């Protein structure tokens, strides 16, 4: 199982396009990528989940971990997601109150 991770820098934001399934096997790859971005000085991160067709607590754990890291640098972590089945996971776990969730990358970057 492959996880696609494509990063684009747009203005002050780093946008990570994730493609595939985020589970206990692939979540560590996402974690590494997000740690790398923060260590490079990208503190305003957008994670685009539109290409994700599976997400569980291991993926949520990685997103929460990344949020803590960017906050330590007064940064932000926002998400792009319009898929009902993925939004449902954020609702059940109460994370819709923790992450700004946008409908498009443009809305998330304020472009």
């Amino acid at each position: 199982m492959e996880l696609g991770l494509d990063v684009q820098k747009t203005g002050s934001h780093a946008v990570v396009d994730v493609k595939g399934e985020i589970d206990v096997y692939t979540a560590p790859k996402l974690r590494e990528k997000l740690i790398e971005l923060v260590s490079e000085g990208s503190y305003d991160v957008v994670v685009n989940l539109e290409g994700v067709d599976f997400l569980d607590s291991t993926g949520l754990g990685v997103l929460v971990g990344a949020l803590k890291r960017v906050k330590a640098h007064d940064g932000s972590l926002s998400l792009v997601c319009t898929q009902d089945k993925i939004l449902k996971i954020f609702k059940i776990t109460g994370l819709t109150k923790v992450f700004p969730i946008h409908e498009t990358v443009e809305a998330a970057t304020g472009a």
Partner: protein
Amino acid sequence: MAVVRIEIPPRSPYVGVVRLAVSSLARSAGLDEEKVDDIKIAVSEACANAVLNNEEAGSDDPVSITWNEDDRSVRIEVADRGPTVDTSDTDAVDTQGFSTRAVMSYALLKSLVDGCEFEPRDGGGMTTRLLINR
């Protein structure tokens, strides 16, 4: 009553295979796509919990996933031979007030299926029992 059993090493690369097999079983059982998605997540949570606990403990004994269906329900058991886990602490938060992964896992399991129980196994390890009504 149809029974399918899958045994995997207690390691993360194998959880995707279980998810694929279980979603195919769920579709064949005639469940709708929303229930199929719920089952995929619940089984992945149970397997992830087992794999993480087994990896931490260095256990190599297989995790077994049992699929049982009848006219009224589907019952799925995920059983491992890792450590016995205390599943009573279901709203642990970290120092910054965020829920831990374990707590989010628990919330998903409780919400996505019609029944979810954790039980220590004779001989060591845990069993997660999932119930899905048709």
